[in-house]
């Protein structure tokens, strides 16, 4: 195979030894980066070099590396998941950068997402929001016959588009208020649009909003930064749906 001439990139990577430690940027060059590499593969190359020279590799979250698990994070030059819309960091390719580019890599920053180490943040606050009501209590048993439970096609599509939220937390990272409204609302809307979700609809929205607030996330000021940064383009319509369900539930609940 012919030798591919790689790019050289000037990186500034956030390094922080632990949750309470003071962090700072590490300046490092990434060499021989092939345009077809993903952003995470580029970091793998950087880490291999760090290990080779006896230094500690940079910690970052990743799992499936095919854009569906929501594990990868990173704020790249100020943009959660990088400059491309509707893309996770693992699906961001180095061809989107030019040889000699400077890239600043930061963790998702929010009080409710404390930094564990380097670029890894603790996103378990999202799990607790989900646990507060993002489920159906009744045992649903095995899958029913198709059309046993009538769901209008439009509702099925809307519920599905809400359910595509992978819970990565880019919405919190992008929001100037570190608000978790887009995530919470997607989870609320997903079940609110389906017949199976109706029984606990009021309780769900009240409890999930309560947990969201208790976690210390900020409030929504409708700037739309969350939806712009979202790798699966969850719409602001979800937040409106959560808002009106919350208002209705606040009035009706016993």
């Amino acid at each position, binding site marked *: 195979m012919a030798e591919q001439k790689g790019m050289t990139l000037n990186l500034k990577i956030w390094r922080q030894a632990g949750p309470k430690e003071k962090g700072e940027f590490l300046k490092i060059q990434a060499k021989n980066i092939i345009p077809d590499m993903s952003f995470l593969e580029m970091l793998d190359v950087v880490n291999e070099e760090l290990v080779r020279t006896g230094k500690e590799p940079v910690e970052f979250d990743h799992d499936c590396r095919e854009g569906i698990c929501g594990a990868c994070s990173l704020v790249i030059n100020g943009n959660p998941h990088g400059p491309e819309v509707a893309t996770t960091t693992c699906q961001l390719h180095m061809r989107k950068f030019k040889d000699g580019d400077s890239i600043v890599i930061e963790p998702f920053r929010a009080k409710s997402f404390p930094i564990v180490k380097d670029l890894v943040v603790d996103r378990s606050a999202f799990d607790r929001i989900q646990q507060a009501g993002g489920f159906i209590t009744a045992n649903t048993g095995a899958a029913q016959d198709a059309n046993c439970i009538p769901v209008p096609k439009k509702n099925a599509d809307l519920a599905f588009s809400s359910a595509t939220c992978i819970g990565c937390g880019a919405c919190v990272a992008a929001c100037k208020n570190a608000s978790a409204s887009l995530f919470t609302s997607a989870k609320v809307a997903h079940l609110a649009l389906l017949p199976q979700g109706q029984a606990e609809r009021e309780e769900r929205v009240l*409890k999930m909003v309560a947990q969201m607030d208790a976690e210390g996330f900020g409030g929504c000021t409708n700037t739309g930064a969350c939806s712009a940064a979202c790798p699966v383009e969850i719409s602001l319509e979800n937040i409106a749906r959560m808002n009106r369900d919350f208002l209705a539930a606040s009035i009706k609940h016993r």
Partner: protein
Amino acid sequence: MQNVSRKMGWLTSSVGRKQLIGVTGLGLCGFLVAHMAPNMLILFSAEMYNKYSHALISNPLIYAAEVGLLLLFLGHLVFALRLSWMNWRARDTRYAVMSNGPKRTAWAQRSLWAQGLVILVFVILHLITFKYGTHYSVTYDGVEMRDLHKLVVEVFSEPAYVIWYVVALFVLFFHLRHGLGSSLQTLGINHPRYNCAIKVASWAYAVIVVGGFLSQPIYVYLLQRG
């Protein structure tokens, strides 16, 4: 952090507080129209302007209206400041680089709280200047009343005051343009069939209200200045 496992009171939740800010904001939007439209009488005659002002302040219901207005204003202000403070604290370390490209949001959307503070200063100065300003008298048809027109002309003859007024109104423009649509979103109104109309209405409302208010000092400065 544990699961709190409780339901939320409306006014103790971030969503409920935002809805209160939205509702009070919409109320204040109504007030702005009721304030701007009759003030356009200044373009017609001093007598019409003064007679309207006299009719307004001599109506006993004005006190109830003033209390209501004050509550709207304070509710909007206090809850918005509280929420802004909570929002500020939700991120303890700031990013080194600002977002850019398609993921960037507009400055006007990110600074609603700052716009609100400029408007607060404006409203306080505005009340001191006009409501509690110099009391001139004039008599029409044997009825003695306040010559507010004289005071307005006097104030708007000062270029510095006109400039400050214009600047504050531009800030109000951005606040209203975002605020109207934002209030509806917060109250849960977002539907593909109506979103375009809401956007157009927010723009139109902001242009009409701010345009109306702007026309008054500019008209006085250019044409009425003694």
